[in-house]
């Protein structure tokens, strides 16, 4: 959130927003609480006020720094997932962070050791295989996955789905879904991957889903639930939507743009 304070109103042209919106304070006001967007900023001439300019620079600095955070499965947030679900780590063919940024072709492919390890450690032909990828935000994985993964595994099991052993992929791009599909033969693969860090949050996670992903599949065969974070789609809602899509895939035996989420309840519930 933008921390800048807002002056009390002195206008005499009558209230636009109903009371108590008039006692606005930037951080909890009825009006600005409606959106994390930087609305009602005021201006200095045609430009930003100084406080706005500095807030933008500070948030950009934090987002830039967040890019270079390194996530370890020893992290206190992640370690319980190792104990409980046997989460383990592999890497794509992008061996370094620099390669990860510059070589999407490498980040879409598991390296040979990863294929061998996944093939050996993950049960094959399950209904649902979960993959966790760092993507462009380790902070997103650390913030969302510890809550999301147990909910997802529990809810999937309650629906009678067989679930594979989850795997963490370092330097991960979305296209890695294809190699995971080919390696495990899973019916549906869901990739929980850190989105590029924004100014408002560096903790936004995406779930990419594919039905029987295989070499050559593209985004046209994938479905996306984005903006999974505290100010966006909350974990229980994300799980509901993920499993809703899994059900659609199993019904239609396909995934992608021709399969749509059947309801818009997130609009009503995610506030």
């Amino acid at each position: 959130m933008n921390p800048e304070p807002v002056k009390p109103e002195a206008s005499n042209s009558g209230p636009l927003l109903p009371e108590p919106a008039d006692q606005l304070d930037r951080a909890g006001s009825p009006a600005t609480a409606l959106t994390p967007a930087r609305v009602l900023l005021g201006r200095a001439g045609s430009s930003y006020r100084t406080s706005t300019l500095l807030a933008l620079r500070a948030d950009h600095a934090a987002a830039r720094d967040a890019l270079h955070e390194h996530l370890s499965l020893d992290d206190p947030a992640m370690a319980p997932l190792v104990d409980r679900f046997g989460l383990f780590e592999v890497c794509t063919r992008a061996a370094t962070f620099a390669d990860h940024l510059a070589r999407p072709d490498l980040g879409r492919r598991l390296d040979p050791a990863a294929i061998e390890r996944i093939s050996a450690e993950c049960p094959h032909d399950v209904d649902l295989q979960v993959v966790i990828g760092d993507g462009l935000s380790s902070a997103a994985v650390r913030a969302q996955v510890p809550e999301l993964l147990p909910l997802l595994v529990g809810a999937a099991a309650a629906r009678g789905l067989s679930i594979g052993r989850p795997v963490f992929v370092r330097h991960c791009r979305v296209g890695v879904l294809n190699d995971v599909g080919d390696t495990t033969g899973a019916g549906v693969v869901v990739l929980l991957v850190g989105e590029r860090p924004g100014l408002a949050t560096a903790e936004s996670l995406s779930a990419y889903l594919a039905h029987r992903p295989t070499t050559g599949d593209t985004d046209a065969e994938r479905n996306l639930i984005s903006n999974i974070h505290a100010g966006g789609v909350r974990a229980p809602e994300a799980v509901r939507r993920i499993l809703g899509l899994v059900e659609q895939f199993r019904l239609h035996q396909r995934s992608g743009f021709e399969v749509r989420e059947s309801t818009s309840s997130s609009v009503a519930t995610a506030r």
Partner: protein
Amino acid sequence: MSHRATLRGETFVFADLRELFGRANEEKSGDQLAGVAARSERERVAAKIVLADVSLREIAECTFLDDDVSALIHAGHDSAQFATIASLTVGEFRELVLDPGFVELWEQGLHRAITPEMGAAVARLMGARDLIAAAARLRVVTRCRDTMGEAGVLGVRIQPNHPTDDPAGVALSIIDGLVMGCGDAVIGINPVNDSVASVVALEHTIGGIIDQIGAPTQSCVLAHFTTQLAAMAAGAPIDLLFQSIAGTEGANRSFGVDLVALAEGREAVLDHHRSRSGFIGEQVMYFETGQGSALSAEAHGGLDQLTCEARAHGVARAFDPFLVNSVVGFIGPEYLADARQIMRAGLEDHFMGKLLGLPMGVDVCYTNHVDADADTTDQLLMLLATAGCNFVMGVPGSDDVMLNYQSTSPHDALAARELFGLRPAPEFDAWLEQVGIHVDGRLATPSEPGPAALRSIDALRSAVVELLP
């Protein structure tokens, strides 16, 4: 046919036009990733020297890719007009394009003789100033519910994105943009949720505000075009039909885009408009493009990203669009590495679009994992305002809280309009005066932060209050 050039005693050979085009590009990380870039600065210039002597006829006769995009480009090529320029070399064509007399030929229809690959070829021989000066003369005017693109107009899309598509939050961002004089190009949201019900709800939110305040502008929900059409069938008002497009059949397929279905969708929206009022033109399509999208989909077919982008413009042209914009810094450092490459690409995309006759705008933007910052967008915005860009984005505080990138803000657009003496679209400009957002052509809303700006505009009041919880 191979091409060769000798530069300072060193000979460079290019197997065919496809290879030559890639080598002649300014430096782009995406071309390096695709393995089509020049391998040295000397080779880049050698390729430009060779390209300057290639005739437009040779480019017209080259099959850059055997796909439906090439077929579409070929089908729309005006061969009678082309006969007047076919014998020109790319170097000669550059000089024609920069000649003040060119605009008259172009307005008479010469743009239909220029293929995307020709536009991309001549852009390779132009510096930043050329790209600006040539584009500035080429005005592309389009009409839907207002008139975009006239000389002296800089339009702004209000982009009221929200991490949960919350209608009240979206409405607040829309009003925030309107009181800064923005929204004449379109009020267009990128939805988080691509379900039909969600798109229907957002179309009603935006359309409801537009109806209530009487603003002469267009709404758009930038979901997949099939979802928008399903929403229309479910009763949603559709002003503009949006789709992201690319310059190869394979990349379009990865977007779920079939050109025949897209054409049918356009017809359906035109039909739908006949049952509604307020339309002053029949341009109903909104497209977004961007260098690197075909490579990102692993569907570039060995072509460089400038050529792919030009071909995406060729696709757009076939649908007579109201708005087209390149989203120039959106895709990431693997395609445009830094501020320098983003600025170059922004000027190229705008120029090529205008040369082909497109109502070209630009989403001037960057992501946090690229080596660029707010100065990059400031600079490119100023350059594009000089170049006569049709429209830019208005994202609150430049920070898109759903797509997680930084674009231009209503403040940025206001500054560009003031610096260069540019106005909103004429119908929208009149409306701004009528409701009191403008007084004597200047923004009249209070400059202090908070809802003072909203409070002062009676016409907007009920629209917001109704949407608040």
